[in-house]
Protein backbone atom coordinates (compact mmCIF):
# COMPACT_ATOMS: atom_id res chain seq x y z
CA UNK A 1 0.00 0.00 0.00
CA UNK A 2 2.74 2.43 1.03
CA UNK A 3 4.66 1.36 -2.05
CA UNK A 4 1.74 2.03 -4.37
CA UNK A 5 1.40 5.45 -2.78
CA UNK A 6 5.06 6.33 -3.29
CA UNK A 7 4.83 5.36 -6.97
CA UNK A 8 1.87 7.73 -7.27
CA UNK A 9 3.83 10.57 -5.67
CA UNK A 10 6.95 9.98 -7.78
CA UNK A 11 4.99 9.92 -11.03
CA UNK A 12 3.15 13.09 -10.09
CA UNK A 13 6.50 14.69 -9.29
CA UNK A 14 7.92 13.66 -12.69
CA UNK A 15 4.88 15.07 -14.49
CA UNK A 16 5.01 18.34 -12.55
CA UNK A 17 8.76 18.77 -13.07
CA UNK A 18 8.22 18.37 -16.81
CA UNK A 19 5.23 20.63 -17.18
CA UNK A 20 6.12 23.39 -14.70
CA UNK A 21 8.92 25.01 -16.75
CA UNK A 22 6.60 25.10 -19.78
CA UNK A 23 3.91 26.78 -17.67
CA UNK A 24 6.55 29.24 -16.43
CA UNK A 25 7.17 30.44 -20.01
CA UNK A 26 3.54 31.44 -20.36
CA UNK A 27 3.06 32.87 -16.87
CA UNK A 28 6.33 34.78 -16.73
CA UNK A 29 5.71 36.44 -20.09
CA UNK A 30 2.88 38.33 -18.36
CA UNK A 31 5.04 39.52 -15.47
CA UNK A 32 6.76 42.90 -15.22
CA UNK A 33 10.58 42.63 -15.09
CA UNK A 34 10.80 43.34 -11.35
CA UNK A 35 8.80 40.22 -10.59
CA UNK A 36 11.03 38.11 -12.82
CA UNK A 37 14.27 39.20 -11.18
CA UNK A 38 12.79 38.79 -7.69
CA UNK A 39 10.83 35.58 -8.01
CA UNK A 40 7.83 35.51 -5.67
CA UNK A 41 5.64 32.78 -7.03
CA UNK A 42 4.29 31.16 -10.15
CA UNK A 43 1.55 33.64 -10.92
CA UNK A 44 2.19 37.29 -11.72
CA UNK A 45 1.09 39.67 -8.96
CA UNK A 46 0.54 42.24 -11.62
CA UNK A 47 -0.59 40.82 -14.98
CA UNK A 48 0.81 42.92 -17.82
CA UNK A 49 0.88 42.65 -21.60
CA UNK A 50 3.73 45.17 -21.71
CA UNK A 51 6.25 42.53 -22.91
CA UNK A 52 4.07 41.61 -25.88
CA UNK A 53 3.27 45.23 -26.59
CA UNK A 54 6.97 46.04 -26.71
CA UNK A 55 7.68 43.22 -29.19
CA UNK A 56 4.80 44.17 -31.46
CA UNK A 57 5.79 47.85 -31.57
CA UNK A 58 9.44 47.11 -32.34
CA UNK A 59 8.72 45.44 -35.65
CA UNK A 60 11.76 47.18 -37.20
CA UNK A 61 14.22 45.35 -34.93
CA UNK A 62 12.07 42.33 -34.19
CA UNK A 63 9.96 41.46 -37.25
CA UNK A 64 8.25 38.70 -35.32
CA UNK A 65 5.19 38.58 -37.60
CA UNK A 66 7.49 38.17 -40.63
CA UNK A 67 9.14 35.26 -38.84
CA UNK A 68 5.76 33.81 -37.91
CA UNK A 69 4.67 34.09 -41.55
CA UNK A 70 7.91 32.50 -42.80
CA UNK A 71 7.57 29.63 -40.33
CA UNK A 72 3.95 29.04 -41.31
CA UNK A 73 4.77 29.09 -45.03
CA UNK A 74 7.74 26.73 -44.68
CA UNK A 75 6.15 24.25 -42.28
CA UNK A 76 2.89 24.06 -44.24
CA UNK A 77 4.72 23.54 -47.52
CA UNK A 78 6.93 20.83 -46.02
CA UNK A 79 3.84 19.07 -44.67
CA UNK A 80 2.08 19.12 -48.06
CA UNK A 81 5.20 18.04 -49.95
CA UNK A 82 5.89 15.17 -47.56
CA UNK A 83 2.27 13.97 -47.65
CA UNK A 84 2.13 13.92 -51.46
CA UNK A 85 5.52 12.42 -52.37
CA UNK A 86 5.65 9.97 -49.45
CA UNK A 87 2.16 8.58 -49.98
CA UNK A 88 2.72 8.12 -53.73
CA UNK A 89 6.04 6.38 -53.10
CA UNK A 90 4.69 4.23 -50.27
CA UNK A 91 1.76 3.13 -52.43
CA UNK A 92 4.03 2.22 -55.33
CA UNK A 93 6.37 0.28 -53.03
CA UNK A 94 3.61 -1.47 -51.09
CA UNK A 95 1.28 -2.38 -53.94
CA UNK A 96 2.67 -2.13 -57.48
CA UNK A 97 5.02 -4.69 -59.04
CA UNK A 98 8.29 -2.84 -59.31
CA UNK A 99 11.41 -4.80 -60.26
CA UNK A 100 13.98 -3.98 -57.56
CA UNK A 101 11.28 -2.88 -55.15
CA UNK A 102 12.79 -4.69 -52.16
CA UNK A 103 16.19 -3.26 -52.87
CA UNK A 104 14.88 0.30 -53.16
CA UNK A 105 12.83 -0.02 -49.97
CA UNK A 106 15.79 -1.41 -48.00
CA UNK A 107 17.96 1.48 -49.18
CA UNK A 108 15.30 3.98 -48.08
CA UNK A 109 14.94 2.24 -44.70
CA UNK A 110 18.70 2.14 -44.16
CA UNK A 111 18.91 5.93 -44.42
CA UNK A 112 16.69 6.24 -41.34
CA UNK A 113 19.79 5.33 -39.35
CA UNK A 114 21.94 8.00 -41.02
CA UNK A 115 22.61 10.89 -38.61
CA UNK A 116 21.40 14.12 -40.20
CA UNK A 117 24.59 16.03 -39.38
CA UNK A 118 26.49 14.29 -42.18
CA UNK A 119 24.27 16.03 -44.78
CA UNK A 120 24.68 19.61 -43.51
CA UNK A 121 27.80 20.70 -45.41
CA UNK A 122 27.09 18.95 -48.74
CA UNK A 123 23.42 20.02 -48.80
CA UNK A 124 24.55 23.60 -48.12
CA UNK A 125 26.75 23.45 -51.24
CA UNK A 126 24.00 21.85 -53.34
CA UNK A 127 21.56 24.58 -52.28
CA UNK A 128 24.16 27.21 -53.07
CA UNK A 129 24.58 25.78 -56.62
CA UNK A 130 20.78 25.82 -57.03
CA UNK A 131 20.72 29.47 -55.79
CA UNK A 132 18.22 28.43 -53.14
CA UNK A 133 20.17 29.64 -50.10
CA UNK A 134 18.33 32.33 -48.15
CA UNK A 135 15.00 31.31 -49.74
CA UNK A 136 12.20 29.17 -48.26
CA UNK A 137 12.98 26.49 -50.89
CA UNK A 138 16.20 25.66 -49.01
CA UNK A 139 14.14 24.43 -46.08
CA UNK A 140 11.15 23.01 -47.96
CA UNK A 141 12.50 20.80 -50.75
CA UNK A 142 15.27 18.86 -48.92
CA UNK A 143 12.77 18.04 -46.15
CA UNK A 144 10.92 15.86 -48.70
CA UNK A 145 13.82 13.38 -48.80
CA UNK A 146 13.32 11.90 -45.33
CA UNK A 147 12.46 8.22 -45.11
CA UNK A 148 10.20 8.22 -42.03
CA UNK A 149 6.96 8.98 -43.89
CA UNK A 150 7.55 6.41 -46.62
CA UNK A 151 8.20 3.80 -43.95
CA UNK A 152 5.14 4.76 -41.88
CA UNK A 153 2.71 4.81 -44.82
CA UNK A 154 4.20 1.67 -46.39
CA UNK A 155 3.46 -0.27 -43.19
CA UNK A 156 -0.05 1.15 -43.09
CA UNK A 157 -0.86 0.46 -46.77
CA UNK A 158 0.30 -3.14 -46.39
CA UNK A 159 -2.37 -3.65 -43.75
CA UNK A 160 -5.22 -2.63 -46.08
CA UNK A 161 -7.06 -5.69 -47.48
CA UNK A 162 -6.34 -6.33 -51.16
CA UNK A 163 -9.94 -7.31 -51.94
CA UNK A 164 -10.99 -3.67 -52.09
CA UNK A 165 -8.44 -2.92 -54.81
CA UNK A 166 -9.24 -6.05 -56.79
CA UNK A 167 -12.89 -5.08 -56.90
CA UNK A 168 -11.98 -1.58 -58.04
CA UNK A 169 -9.64 -3.00 -60.69
CA UNK A 170 -12.43 -5.13 -62.13
CA UNK A 171 -14.41 -1.90 -62.46
CA UNK A 172 -11.53 -0.54 -64.55
CA UNK A 173 -9.93 1.66 -61.93
CA UNK A 174 -6.33 2.70 -62.67
CA UNK A 175 -3.52 2.49 -60.07
CA UNK A 176 -3.73 6.24 -59.57
CA UNK A 177 -7.51 5.93 -59.12
CA UNK A 178 -7.07 3.20 -56.50
CA UNK A 179 -4.50 5.36 -54.70
CA UNK A 180 -6.88 8.32 -54.68
CA UNK A 181 -10.23 6.62 -54.05
CA UNK A 182 -9.21 3.72 -51.82
CA UNK A 183 -5.78 4.01 -50.24
CA UNK A 184 -5.85 7.67 -49.20
CA UNK A 185 -9.33 7.74 -47.63
CA UNK A 186 -8.56 4.54 -45.68
CA UNK A 187 -5.23 5.91 -44.42
CA UNK A 188 -6.41 9.08 -42.76
CA UNK A 189 -5.00 8.23 -39.29
CA UNK A 190 -1.54 7.47 -40.70
CA UNK A 191 -1.62 10.56 -42.93
CA UNK A 192 -2.60 12.72 -39.95
CA UNK A 193 0.26 11.33 -37.87
CA UNK A 194 2.73 11.98 -40.68
CA UNK A 195 1.39 15.51 -41.24
CA UNK A 196 1.80 16.41 -37.57
CA UNK A 197 5.32 15.00 -37.36
CA UNK A 198 6.38 16.79 -40.55
CA UNK A 199 4.90 20.09 -39.40
CA UNK A 200 6.36 20.00 -35.89
CA UNK A 201 9.81 18.89 -37.06
CA UNK A 202 9.92 21.70 -39.60
CA UNK A 203 8.56 24.30 -37.18
CA UNK A 204 11.10 23.39 -34.48
CA UNK A 205 14.13 22.97 -36.76
CA UNK A 206 16.97 25.23 -35.67
CA UNK A 207 20.26 24.16 -37.27
CA UNK A 208 19.13 24.05 -40.93
CA UNK A 209 17.43 27.48 -41.05
CA UNK A 210 20.36 28.99 -39.17
CA UNK A 211 22.81 27.67 -41.74
CA UNK A 212 20.70 28.10 -44.89
CA UNK A 213 19.13 31.54 -44.22
CA UNK A 214 20.98 34.86 -44.11
CA UNK A 215 18.58 37.82 -44.13
CA UNK A 216 16.81 38.67 -40.89
CA UNK A 217 13.59 39.15 -42.88
CA UNK A 218 13.69 35.54 -44.05
CA UNK A 219 14.32 33.88 -40.69
CA UNK A 220 11.96 31.36 -39.19
CA UNK A 221 10.72 31.91 -35.63
CA UNK A 222 13.29 29.71 -33.83
CA UNK A 223 16.23 31.40 -35.58
CA UNK A 224 14.73 34.88 -35.26
CA UNK A 225 13.93 34.49 -31.58
CA UNK A 226 17.42 33.09 -30.92
CA UNK A 227 19.00 36.11 -32.62
CA UNK A 228 16.69 38.38 -30.68
CA UNK A 229 17.58 36.81 -27.34
CA UNK A 230 21.29 37.34 -27.99
CA UNK A 231 20.74 41.11 -28.10
CA UNK A 232 18.11 41.27 -25.34
CA UNK A 233 19.60 38.52 -23.15
CA UNK A 234 18.91 40.19 -19.80
CA UNK A 235 15.31 41.15 -20.59
CA UNK A 236 13.66 37.88 -19.72
CA UNK A 237 10.11 39.19 -19.91
CA UNK A 238 10.63 40.24 -23.49
CA UNK A 239 12.40 37.07 -24.62
CA UNK A 240 9.84 34.86 -22.88
CA UNK A 241 7.01 36.73 -24.61
CA UNK A 242 8.76 35.92 -27.90
CA UNK A 243 8.94 32.30 -26.74
CA UNK A 244 5.18 32.30 -26.19
CA UNK A 245 4.58 33.37 -29.78
CA UNK A 246 6.99 30.68 -30.98
CA UNK A 247 5.44 27.95 -28.83
CA UNK A 248 1.73 28.67 -28.93
CA UNK A 249 1.04 27.13 -32.38
CA UNK A 250 2.88 23.95 -31.37
CA UNK A 251 1.03 23.69 -28.06
CA UNK A 252 -2.25 24.01 -29.97
CA UNK A 253 -1.19 21.25 -32.39
CA UNK A 254 -0.20 19.11 -29.40
CA UNK A 255 -3.49 19.63 -27.56
CA UNK A 256 -5.52 18.89 -30.69
CA UNK A 257 -3.56 15.84 -31.89
CA UNK A 258 -1.81 14.37 -28.84
CA UNK A 259 -3.31 10.93 -29.48
CA UNK A 260 -1.78 10.79 -32.96
CA UNK A 261 1.55 12.00 -31.64
CA UNK A 262 1.82 9.48 -28.82
CA UNK A 263 0.72 6.64 -31.11
CA UNK A 264 3.16 7.67 -33.82
CA UNK A 265 6.10 7.70 -31.44
CA UNK A 266 5.14 4.40 -29.84
CA UNK A 267 4.76 2.80 -33.31
CA UNK A 268 8.25 3.93 -34.30
CA UNK A 269 9.72 1.96 -31.42
CA UNK A 270 7.67 -1.19 -31.84
CA UNK A 271 8.13 -1.68 -35.57
CA UNK A 272 11.70 -2.91 -35.13
Amino acid at each position, binding site marked *: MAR*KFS*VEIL*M*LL*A*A*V*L*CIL*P*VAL*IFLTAFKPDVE*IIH*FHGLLPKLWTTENFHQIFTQSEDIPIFRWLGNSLLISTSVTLLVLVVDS*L*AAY*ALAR*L*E*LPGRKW*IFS*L*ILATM*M*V*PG*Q*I*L*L*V*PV*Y*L*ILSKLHWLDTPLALIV*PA*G*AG*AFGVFLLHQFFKGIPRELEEAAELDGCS*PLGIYWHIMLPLSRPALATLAIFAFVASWN*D*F*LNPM*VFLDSIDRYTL*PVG*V*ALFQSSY*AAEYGLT*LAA*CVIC*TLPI*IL*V*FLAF*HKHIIKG*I*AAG*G*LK*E
Partner: protein
Amino acid sequence: MSRQSSRTLAGYLLLSPYLLLFLLFLIFPLVFGLWLSFMKYELISPHPPRWIGVANYTEAFHDKYFWKALWVTTIFVVISVPITIVLSLAIASGLERLGARRQNLYRLAIFLPSMLTITVVGILWRWFYEAEFGLINSLLAEIHIGKIPWLLTPNWAMASIIIMTIWWTIGAPVIILQAGLKQIPEAFYEAASLDGAVGFRRFFSITLPLLRPVLLFVSVTTIIGAFQIFGQPFLVTSGGPERSTLVMMQYIYGVAFNDYRLGYGAAMSWLLFLVIGLVTIFQFLIFKEN
Protein backbone atom coordinates in the same frame (compact mmCIF):
# COMPACT_ATOMS: atom_id res chain seq x y z
CA MET B 1 0.77 -2.60 -73.41
CA SER B 2 0.12 -5.49 -71.02
CA ARG B 3 -1.55 -4.90 -67.69
CA GLN B 4 1.60 -6.00 -65.90
CA SER B 5 3.94 -3.56 -67.63
CA SER B 6 1.49 -0.69 -67.36
CA ARG B 7 1.35 -1.25 -63.59
CA THR B 8 5.14 -1.30 -63.47
CA LEU B 9 5.30 1.93 -65.41
CA ALA B 10 2.68 3.51 -63.13
CA GLY B 11 4.66 2.33 -60.13
CA TYR B 12 7.84 4.01 -61.25
CA LEU B 13 5.94 7.17 -62.13
CA LEU B 14 4.38 7.38 -58.68
CA LEU B 15 7.67 6.57 -56.99
CA SER B 16 9.69 9.07 -59.00
CA PRO B 17 8.92 12.37 -57.16
CA TYR B 18 10.09 10.94 -53.86
CA LEU B 19 12.95 9.04 -55.43
CA LEU B 20 14.21 12.22 -57.06
CA LEU B 21 14.26 14.09 -53.73
CA PHE B 22 15.76 11.07 -51.99
CA LEU B 23 18.58 10.80 -54.50
CA LEU B 24 19.27 14.54 -54.74
CA PHE B 25 19.09 15.47 -51.04
CA LEU B 26 20.03 12.25 -49.26
CA ILE B 27 22.06 9.79 -51.33
CA PHE B 28 23.98 12.32 -53.42
CA PRO B 29 24.96 14.54 -50.42
CA LEU B 30 26.28 11.45 -48.62
CA VAL B 31 28.64 10.66 -51.50
CA PHE B 32 29.31 14.32 -52.28
CA GLY B 33 30.22 14.96 -48.62
CA LEU B 34 32.71 12.10 -48.68
CA TRP B 35 34.28 13.55 -51.83
CA LEU B 36 34.35 17.03 -50.24
CA SER B 37 36.22 15.63 -47.27
CA PHE B 38 39.16 14.91 -49.59
CA MET B 39 39.11 18.44 -51.03
CA LYS B 40 40.49 21.77 -49.95
CA TYR B 41 37.17 23.56 -50.39
CA GLU B 42 37.20 27.06 -48.91
CA LEU B 43 34.41 29.41 -49.88
CA ILE B 44 36.31 32.66 -49.28
CA SER B 45 39.63 31.46 -50.67
CA PRO B 46 40.75 32.90 -54.04
CA HIS B 47 41.92 29.42 -55.09
CA PRO B 48 39.51 26.96 -56.68
CA PRO B 49 38.74 23.77 -54.72
CA ARG B 50 41.35 21.06 -55.18
CA TRP B 51 41.93 17.43 -54.25
CA ILE B 52 44.23 17.06 -51.24
CA GLY B 53 43.78 13.37 -50.42
CA VAL B 54 43.56 12.55 -46.74
CA ALA B 55 45.03 15.90 -45.62
CA ASN B 56 41.79 16.99 -43.91
CA TYR B 57 41.77 13.76 -41.93
CA THR B 58 45.42 14.07 -40.89
CA GLU B 59 44.69 17.68 -39.90
CA ALA B 60 41.87 16.46 -37.65
CA PHE B 61 44.20 13.96 -35.99
CA HIS B 62 46.61 16.78 -35.14
CA ASP B 63 43.88 19.30 -34.23
CA LYS B 64 43.69 19.50 -30.45
CA TYR B 65 40.30 21.28 -30.69
CA PHE B 66 38.88 18.38 -32.70
CA TRP B 67 39.95 15.95 -29.96
CA LYS B 68 38.61 18.28 -27.29
CA ALA B 69 35.23 18.52 -29.05
CA LEU B 70 35.08 14.74 -29.55
CA TRP B 71 35.97 14.22 -25.87
CA VAL B 72 33.32 16.71 -24.70
CA THR B 73 30.68 15.09 -26.93
CA THR B 74 31.62 11.61 -25.69
CA ILE B 75 31.41 12.71 -22.04
CA PHE B 76 27.97 14.15 -22.76
CA VAL B 77 26.79 10.91 -24.42
CA VAL B 78 28.28 8.64 -21.77
CA ILE B 79 26.61 10.52 -18.91
CA SER B 80 23.31 11.67 -20.42
CA VAL B 81 22.24 8.52 -22.31
CA PRO B 82 22.35 6.01 -19.42
CA ILE B 83 20.54 8.48 -17.16
CA THR B 84 17.91 9.07 -19.84
CA ILE B 85 17.34 5.35 -20.40
CA VAL B 86 17.25 4.31 -16.72
CA LEU B 87 15.04 7.26 -15.80
CA SER B 88 12.64 6.72 -18.72
CA LEU B 89 12.40 3.01 -17.93
CA ALA B 90 11.63 3.84 -14.29
CA ILE B 91 8.98 6.38 -15.32
CA ALA B 92 7.47 4.00 -17.88
CA SER B 93 7.23 1.20 -15.28
CA GLY B 94 5.79 3.62 -12.74
CA LEU B 95 3.18 4.90 -15.17
CA GLU B 96 2.11 1.32 -15.90
CA ARG B 97 0.97 1.00 -12.27
CA LEU B 98 -1.35 3.99 -12.46
CA GLY B 99 -4.96 4.09 -13.60
CA ALA B 100 -5.55 4.70 -17.30
CA ARG B 101 -6.63 8.32 -16.95
CA ARG B 102 -3.67 9.50 -14.89
CA GLN B 103 -1.34 7.41 -17.02
CA ASN B 104 -2.41 9.33 -20.11
CA LEU B 105 -2.36 12.70 -18.36
CA TYR B 106 1.12 12.27 -16.85
CA ARG B 107 2.49 10.91 -20.10
CA LEU B 108 1.28 14.01 -21.92
CA ALA B 109 2.90 16.21 -19.27
CA ILE B 110 6.19 14.33 -19.56
CA PHE B 111 6.17 14.56 -23.36
CA LEU B 112 5.25 18.25 -23.50
CA PRO B 113 8.85 19.59 -23.24
CA SER B 114 9.81 17.55 -26.34
CA MET B 115 7.38 19.65 -28.38
CA LEU B 116 9.38 22.84 -27.77
CA THR B 117 11.97 24.18 -30.18
CA ILE B 118 15.52 24.35 -28.81
CA THR B 119 15.45 28.15 -28.95
CA VAL B 120 12.68 28.26 -26.36
CA VAL B 121 14.31 25.54 -24.26
CA GLY B 122 17.60 27.46 -24.36
CA ILE B 123 16.07 30.79 -23.32
CA LEU B 124 14.14 29.13 -20.52
CA TRP B 125 17.12 27.29 -19.05
CA ARG B 126 19.46 30.25 -19.40
CA TRP B 127 17.07 32.07 -17.14
CA PHE B 128 16.92 29.11 -14.71
CA TYR B 129 20.72 28.83 -14.58
CA GLU B 130 21.57 32.53 -14.37
CA ALA B 131 24.02 32.96 -11.46
CA GLU B 132 22.61 36.05 -9.72
CA PHE B 133 18.86 36.26 -10.27
CA GLY B 134 18.31 32.99 -12.13
CA LEU B 135 15.29 31.00 -10.99
CA ILE B 136 17.13 28.01 -9.48
CA ASN B 137 19.60 30.07 -7.45
CA SER B 138 16.79 32.37 -6.27
CA LEU B 139 14.83 29.38 -5.03
CA LEU B 140 17.94 27.91 -3.39
CA ALA B 141 18.52 31.24 -1.62
CA GLU B 142 14.99 31.05 -0.19
CA ILE B 143 15.91 27.81 1.58
CA HIS B 144 19.36 29.21 2.47
CA ILE B 145 21.43 27.09 0.18
CA GLY B 146 24.38 28.82 -1.46
CA LYS B 147 24.49 29.76 -5.13
CA ILE B 148 25.49 27.09 -7.62
CA PRO B 149 27.83 28.36 -10.40
CA TRP B 150 25.69 26.61 -13.05
CA LEU B 151 27.20 27.90 -16.29
CA LEU B 152 30.39 29.32 -14.81
CA THR B 153 32.65 26.33 -14.21
CA PRO B 154 33.38 23.53 -16.73
CA ASN B 155 31.88 20.71 -14.68
CA TRP B 156 28.73 22.57 -13.70
CA ALA B 157 28.27 23.77 -17.28
CA MET B 158 28.34 20.16 -18.52
CA ALA B 159 25.93 19.16 -15.75
CA SER B 160 23.62 22.03 -16.75
CA ILE B 161 23.59 20.91 -20.39
CA ILE B 162 22.88 17.31 -19.37
CA ILE B 163 20.02 18.23 -17.00
CA MET B 164 18.24 20.42 -19.56
CA THR B 165 18.73 17.80 -22.27
CA ILE B 166 17.16 15.07 -20.14
CA TRP B 167 14.22 17.34 -19.34
CA TRP B 168 13.80 18.18 -23.03
CA THR B 169 14.16 14.69 -24.53
CA ILE B 170 12.88 12.14 -22.00
CA GLY B 171 9.33 12.09 -23.42
CA ALA B 172 9.86 9.87 -26.46
CA PRO B 173 11.81 7.10 -24.62
CA VAL B 174 9.10 7.02 -21.95
CA ILE B 175 6.35 6.59 -24.57
CA ILE B 176 8.24 3.91 -26.52
CA LEU B 177 9.27 1.93 -23.43
CA GLN B 178 5.77 2.09 -21.99
CA ALA B 179 4.33 0.81 -25.26
CA GLY B 180 6.91 -1.98 -25.06
CA LEU B 181 5.86 -2.83 -21.49
CA LYS B 182 2.23 -3.06 -22.59
CA GLN B 183 3.18 -5.68 -25.18
CA ILE B 184 4.51 -8.13 -22.60
CA PRO B 185 1.73 -10.72 -22.16
CA GLU B 186 0.18 -10.84 -18.67
CA ALA B 187 0.60 -14.63 -18.72
CA PHE B 188 4.38 -14.30 -18.27
CA TYR B 189 3.91 -12.38 -15.05
CA GLU B 190 1.28 -14.82 -13.78
CA ALA B 191 3.61 -17.75 -14.38
CA ALA B 192 6.43 -15.89 -12.65
CA SER B 193 4.38 -15.07 -9.58
CA LEU B 194 3.55 -18.78 -9.25
CA ASP B 195 7.29 -19.37 -9.16
CA GLY B 196 7.55 -16.73 -6.47
CA ALA B 197 9.28 -14.08 -8.60
CA VAL B 198 8.15 -10.67 -7.44
CA GLY B 199 9.39 -7.08 -7.41
CA PHE B 200 12.92 -6.60 -8.71
CA ARG B 201 13.43 -10.29 -9.48
CA ARG B 202 10.36 -10.18 -11.68
CA PHE B 203 11.69 -7.05 -13.34
CA PHE B 204 15.11 -8.53 -14.10
CA SER B 205 13.98 -12.04 -15.07
CA ILE B 206 10.95 -11.15 -17.20
CA THR B 207 10.52 -7.48 -18.00
CA LEU B 208 14.07 -6.64 -19.05
CA PRO B 209 14.71 -9.67 -21.31
CA LEU B 210 11.34 -9.28 -23.07
CA LEU B 211 11.89 -5.56 -23.48
CA ARG B 212 15.26 -6.05 -25.14
CA PRO B 213 14.30 -5.17 -28.76
CA VAL B 214 12.56 -1.99 -27.62
CA LEU B 215 15.47 -1.09 -25.35
CA LEU B 216 17.84 -1.57 -28.27
CA PHE B 217 15.79 0.80 -30.40
CA VAL B 218 15.63 3.42 -27.65
CA SER B 219 19.31 3.16 -26.88
CA VAL B 220 20.36 3.34 -30.56
CA THR B 221 18.17 6.34 -31.37
CA THR B 222 19.03 8.17 -28.12
CA ILE B 223 22.76 7.73 -28.72
CA ILE B 224 22.53 8.83 -32.37
CA GLY B 225 20.66 11.94 -31.21
CA ALA B 226 23.03 12.64 -28.30
CA PHE B 227 26.15 12.53 -30.50
CA GLN B 228 24.59 15.26 -32.64
CA ILE B 229 23.86 17.63 -29.74
CA PHE B 230 24.12 21.23 -30.92
CA GLY B 231 21.47 23.73 -29.82
CA GLN B 232 21.83 23.36 -26.04
CA PRO B 233 25.51 24.39 -25.79
CA PHE B 234 25.24 26.73 -28.78
CA LEU B 235 22.44 28.76 -27.18
CA VAL B 236 23.11 28.34 -23.46
CA THR B 237 26.87 28.16 -22.91
CA SER B 238 28.26 29.10 -26.35
CA GLY B 239 30.53 26.09 -25.83
CA GLY B 240 32.19 27.55 -22.74
CA PRO B 241 33.62 28.01 -20.25
CA GLU B 242 37.04 27.08 -21.67
CA ARG B 243 35.52 24.93 -24.41
CA SER B 244 34.17 22.59 -21.73
CA THR B 245 30.83 22.25 -23.58
CA LEU B 246 32.02 22.86 -27.15
CA VAL B 247 30.62 19.74 -28.82
CA MET B 248 31.45 18.21 -32.22
CA MET B 249 28.51 19.75 -34.05
CA GLN B 250 29.31 23.24 -32.80
CA TYR B 251 32.94 22.83 -33.85
CA ILE B 252 31.92 21.52 -37.29
CA TYR B 253 29.45 24.41 -37.62
CA GLY B 254 32.15 26.96 -36.76
CA VAL B 255 34.73 25.47 -39.12
CA ALA B 256 32.29 25.10 -42.03
CA PHE B 257 30.13 28.22 -41.73
CA ASN B 258 32.20 30.78 -39.81
CA ASP B 259 35.60 29.93 -41.31
CA TYR B 260 34.03 28.61 -44.56
CA ARG B 261 36.32 25.57 -44.57
CA LEU B 262 33.76 23.19 -46.06
CA GLY B 263 36.24 20.41 -46.89
CA TYR B 264 37.55 20.21 -43.34
CA GLY B 265 34.00 20.45 -41.98
CA ALA B 266 32.88 17.57 -44.22
CA ALA B 267 35.85 15.45 -43.09
CA MET B 268 34.97 15.96 -39.41
CA SER B 269 31.31 15.16 -40.21
CA TRP B 270 32.47 11.85 -41.65
CA LEU B 271 34.63 11.14 -38.60
CA LEU B 272 31.63 11.79 -36.34
CA PHE B 273 29.51 9.57 -38.62
CA LEU B 274 32.13 6.83 -38.26
CA VAL B 275 32.08 7.09 -34.47
CA ILE B 276 28.26 6.95 -34.39
CA GLY B 277 28.25 4.00 -36.82
CA LEU B 278 30.75 2.00 -34.74
CA VAL B 279 28.86 2.66 -31.51
CA THR B 280 25.60 1.60 -33.20
CA ILE B 281 27.10 -1.66 -34.51
CA PHE B 282 28.56 -2.30 -31.05
CA GLN B 283 25.11 -1.95 -29.48
CA PHE B 284 23.57 -4.41 -31.94
CA LEU B 285 26.30 -6.93 -31.08
CA ILE B 286 25.86 -6.50 -27.31
CA PHE B 287 22.09 -6.82 -27.43
CA LYS B 288 22.37 -9.91 -29.62
CA GLU B 289 24.88 -11.71 -27.42
CA ASN B 290 23.03 -11.60 -24.11
